């Protein structure tokens, strides 16, 4: 073998190595981010999806993660489990590693499947509240404060900043669906523990007519009113509350009350109303500024630029922030190609991740898939939501007790 052929061979080998390296760097990571754009979740799905896609576009503009770019499937599943299953199977076969459907019925139908296929299902702000138990739901990641943690955070806020819980009368006005009833057992336990009075008022789904419930609420003379609904039913709830002379500052809402809803309601209708929030709203953050600069102004954004920074938009951004952080950790530790198992491990390596101060510190472990359960309370000032408390996780011992008990029931048949 002459020196020359040796050299040629060496170069060829080198080229081959480089080529595979390049090929690896170009391997795209696929996310399936399907939504219900047409049925129940129409109130926020478009904004949520826009936030997710804009942030991934930003990452791609900035060179991706370790050279990997992102590709998304965005489809409408219309809140129907069978369509969600079809979309899941399709995306799985096309190599997607992360799935998010923003619909409780679809997520619930998918949980047995992802557990079997070892695929990661993100269920931020939807799905089962007990999916935070990592041992039982190893591939399901709620990753933000669940409805239970939101309810406890609101109660903690009353306890800390509104003169204590003891002896207070709290009206819990909710839509009569599994979602609306979700926090009741937990709140009843807390009511016994903290000795406050809790009464629940249900209005029938879809909640466009609630006058009977609110006539009753007014006569109950509650100190605080929780409203637990989504979309239109929240708007009707707030209108009825104001009409029945309840001070907006005494109304506390689940996370589903955002700029869009307030605009629909009339921006000055309920100044002072409070809500639980798990991500901040507004554009005053470096990440959103970068999105505005590199994505929206560059004409690469999807949808209406006006909604950038809205709560639902920021929820989408937050979902992607946490997930891409998990991707980064998984790639650093295990290298490509990314699989469901690696991504799961990546999620469970997230420690005190706050996305340049955008999020409360998120820590996900093998046991805790909630990320700590941090939430805060914010207040509507007529134009924007202003935080009135710090990020905190409240009564997590109770939340976990409830979640463990419920998760044990899930395991029972197996």
């Amino acid at each position, binding site marked *: 073998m002459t020196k020359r052929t040796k050299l040629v061979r060496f170069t060829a080998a080198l080229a081959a190595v480089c080529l595979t390296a390049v090929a690896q760097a170009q391997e795209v990571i696929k996310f399936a981010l399907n939504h219900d*754009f*047409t*049925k129940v979740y*129409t*109130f*926020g*799905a*478009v*904004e949520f999806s826009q936030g997710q896609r804009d942030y991934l576009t930003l990452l791609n503009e900035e060179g991706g993660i370790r050279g990997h770019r992102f590709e998304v499937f965005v489809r409408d599943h219309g809140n129907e489990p069978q369509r969600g299953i079809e979309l899941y199977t399709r995306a799985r076969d096309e190599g997607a590693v992360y799935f998010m459907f923003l619909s409780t019925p679809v997520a619930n139908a998918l949980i047995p499947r992802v557990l079997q296929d070892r695929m990661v299902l993100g269920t931020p702000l939807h799905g089962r509240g007990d999916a935070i138990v990592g041992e039982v739901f190893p591939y399901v990641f709620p990753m933000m404060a669940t409805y239970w943690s939101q309810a406890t955070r609101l109660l903690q806020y009353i306890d800390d900043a509104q003169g204590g819980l003891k002896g207070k009368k709290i009206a819990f006005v909710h*839509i*009569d669906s599994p979602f609306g009833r979700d926090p009741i057992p937990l709140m009843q336990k807390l009511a016994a523990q903290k000795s406050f009075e809790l*009464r*629940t*008022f*249900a*209005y*029938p*789904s*879809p909640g*466009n*007519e609630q*006058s*009977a*419930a609110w*006539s*009753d609420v*007014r*006569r109950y003379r509650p100190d605080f009113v929780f409203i637990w609904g989504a*979309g*239109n039913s929240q*708007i*009707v709830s707030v*209108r009825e509350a*104001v*009409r*029945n*002379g309840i001070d907006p500052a005494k109304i506390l809402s689940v996370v589903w009350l955002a700029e*869009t*809803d307030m*605009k*629909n*309601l*009339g921006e000055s*209708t309920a100044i002072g109303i409070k809500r639980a929030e798990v991500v901040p709203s507004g554009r005053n953050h470096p990440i959103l500024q970068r999105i505005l600069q590199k994505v929206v102004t560059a004409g690469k954004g999807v949808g209406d630029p006006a909604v950038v920074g809205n709560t639902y938009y920021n929820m989408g951004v937050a979902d992607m922030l946490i997930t891409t952080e998990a991707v980064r950790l998984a790639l650093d530790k295990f290298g490509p190609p990314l699989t469901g198992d690696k991504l799961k491990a990546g999620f469970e390596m997230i420690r005190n991740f706050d996305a340049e101060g955008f999020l409360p510190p998120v820590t996900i472990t093998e046991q805790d898939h909630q990320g700590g359960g941090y939430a805060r309370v914010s207040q509507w000032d007529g134009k924007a939501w202003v935080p009135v408390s710090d990020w905190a996780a409240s009564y997590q011992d109770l939340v976990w007790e409830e979640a463990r008990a419920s998760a044990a029931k899930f395991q029972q048949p197996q």
Partner: protein
Amino acid sequence: MDFLFLLELFINGLNTGLMYSLVALGITMIYKASGVPNLAQGAMVMIAGYLLWATIALLGLPLWIAIPFVVVLMFLFGLAIERWLLRRMVGQPVLMIVMLTLGLEILLRGVGPGVFDAAPKRLDLGLGLAPLVVADVFINRAYLIGAISAGILILLAAAFFRTRLGTKLRAVSDDHVASWAVGISVERAIGISWGIAGVAAVGAGTLWGSVQGVDWTLSALLFPAIAVVILGGIDSLLGVFVGGIIVGVLGSVIPGYLDPIVGGGTRDVVTSVLIVLTILLRPYGIFGREDIERV
């Protein structure tokens, strides 16, 4: 105090019930003329709501011009549905025509939110939120005005049946063939009934849109409206009026007392039980006309 609670439930129930009647009015009009239960009436209400919102928000017209404008649009829309869809199904099994209205509902459910954006829209009639307070009874202004408008529209519809055109419509609802024989244009009469249903949809769309915002959920008003027509009798205007009141009042008063005991929203249960009982006791509704069948 407790009596006042009952009174408040009663009045608010009365008002909302009449607002359901407004949706039901369209169903009755069409059924009277053509014997077709229109399952797309809820979607027509939604389309009317969207059109009104679009005229105000996108074209910038004031409310008092926008409403007559949309009334005309929806009347034409009703005529068009009859002309292009229903007329071609004449003589087919009624069930298939019902399926056609269901298909129409699906189509409109896609078109409305698809074209105008699915996020809920605000429709402000300038009524304000302050309730009308009478001796600690809080009456919802929006519902009260809705109920009054519903009452007026039902009265207008009843008066309409006394006009020459209305008489023709009554003849058509009685017997298609006989009407044909005496020279009444049955097609035109049915078309006009669809147009009137479109107009009724504007009333319902405006009032319900102002209460809950305009989005696709307006089409879900179909179920309470159907409860109203079944209770009152599907071919009776008086039935629509009385049925609305009964559904509204019982659906407000009973849950008002039952909900705290059961711990759930029982309104739909009350409505459902009401329907089942009506059907078992009076199969043709309170004011409905009993069909006499011949072998």
